[in-house]
């Protein structure tokens, strides 16, 4: 029984990854969007090094939040439209696995590219090299949580306007934004930042079962 759950998980992952890689826009769009948003801050605020490096944590995090919400609508919409989702709910596989796989895919095509691009963003915003590791850790935990929240938003707003899911999700992403920027700011000030990372980890640990189950509940609303 165990192996079959992991089998179905890996089948979904393989299929969705293949679809994502066949269409390069899926993983390039969030990446470019992230870099464009980051570039706009120096253009709007001026290129002073001291100003930019103190603003860098906030700028990187706001850009990361927006970029990870950009592709949120696509998590379920295509499968919902072409009936793949129906097939899955008819099959006897636990629907939790489907949602978890979808969240993982969304993170792989948005969170991971953002993580890679964040180093470039950190360089052009003059973030000190010592803060790179805290930044990457906070983004790793934070973007994963955003993918979970985004999946719930996408499931609730399935078939509605794309902007709706972003508006639903944004107020709930406040803790992630605050903790994420706090991690980087603390490391800038040579303070201990492990506490913030632990809270983010705890949110992720509770979010994986909690938010995935609520997302299943939200998806099933469309099949009544």
């Amino acid at each position, binding site marked *: 029984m165990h192996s079959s759950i992991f089998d179905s998980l890996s089948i979904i992952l393989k299929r969705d990854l293949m679809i994502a890689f066949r269409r390069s826009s899926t993983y390039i769009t969030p990446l470019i969007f992230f870099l464009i948003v980051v570039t706009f801050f120096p253009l709007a605020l001026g290129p002073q090094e001291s100003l930019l490096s103190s603003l860098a944590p906030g700028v990187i995090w706001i850009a990361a939040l927006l970029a990870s919400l950009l592709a949120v609508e696509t998590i379920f919409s295509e499968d919902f439209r072409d009936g793949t989702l129906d097939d899955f709910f008819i099959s006897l596989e636990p629907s939790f696995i489907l949602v978890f796989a979808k969240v993982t895919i969304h993170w792989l095509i948005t969170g991971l590219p953002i993580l890679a691009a964040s180093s470039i963003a950190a360089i052009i915003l003059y973030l000190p090299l010592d803060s790179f590791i805290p930044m990457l850790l906070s983004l790793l935990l934070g973007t994963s949580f955003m993918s979970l929240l985004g999946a*719930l938003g996408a499931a609730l707003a399935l078939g509605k306007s794309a902007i709706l899911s972003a508006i639903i999700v*944004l107020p709930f992403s406040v803790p992630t934004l605050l903790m994420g920027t*706090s991690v980087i700011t603390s490391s800038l000030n040579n303070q201990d930042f492990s506490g913030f990372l632990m809270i983010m980890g705890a949110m992720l640990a509770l979010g994986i079962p909690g938010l995935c189950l*609520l997302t299943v*509940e*939200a998806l099933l609303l469309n099949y009544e």
Partner: protein
Amino acid sequence: MIKKWLIEMGSPPLFYKWSTKTLPWLFISAILILGIGLSWGLLFAPTDYKQGDVYRILYIHVPSAILGQSIFMFMAFCGFINVIWRAKISGMMLKSAAPIGVSFTLLALVTGSIWGKPTWGTWWVWDARLTSTLILFFIYAALIGLHSTIEDKTKADRAVSILSIVGLAIIPVIKKSVDWWQTLHQPSTFTITSSPSMSPDMYQPLLLCLVGFYLFFALLLTLNLRNEILERERTRNWVKQLLGVSS
């Protein structure tokens, strides 16, 4: 006995009939207590020696801030019941409570701002309480926005229920993180409500106002809920009989 009553209240027509009987009492008690509390607070409570008469806005500000949060908890509780037991009326309650909750939260923000200008010299401070109340307002907006986009009302109720449960889990995290964010970025400049020093003749009207606000909420909720019931069950026979419309 209580269980039977709860099951009866879960049925829209029975709730409607029961609330018709209790509504006048609720109305009278809400108006009476709110009236006494507000006039006591606004007219007869002693003037503050430091802030003068400005502080009297507290009799509206504090109860509405408390109500804004309690109504959210009430909504999440309804959402919980709605998701688990699919009780129709809990979804309607959730939907009816949302506009009241968002109004009280907005009232708290606006009165706080009006109070802040003469006492702090500014309309807005990025204080932990203010910030988390503002985010609560956005969460209410998200819930109401989501409900209005889904056509099928029962489904909309369930979707909002799911989101309100997430909200209940995340609001304590928001409060804590805003606290930490504040201590990280700036020292806490203002603490308005370190109020154990409040004298009893200022405290008593506040307590009465708070009870009055809760009753007022119960009154508004009942009225909203009755409208909601009538609207959703308008094709049912009991509504037609009630309104004297022949089918």
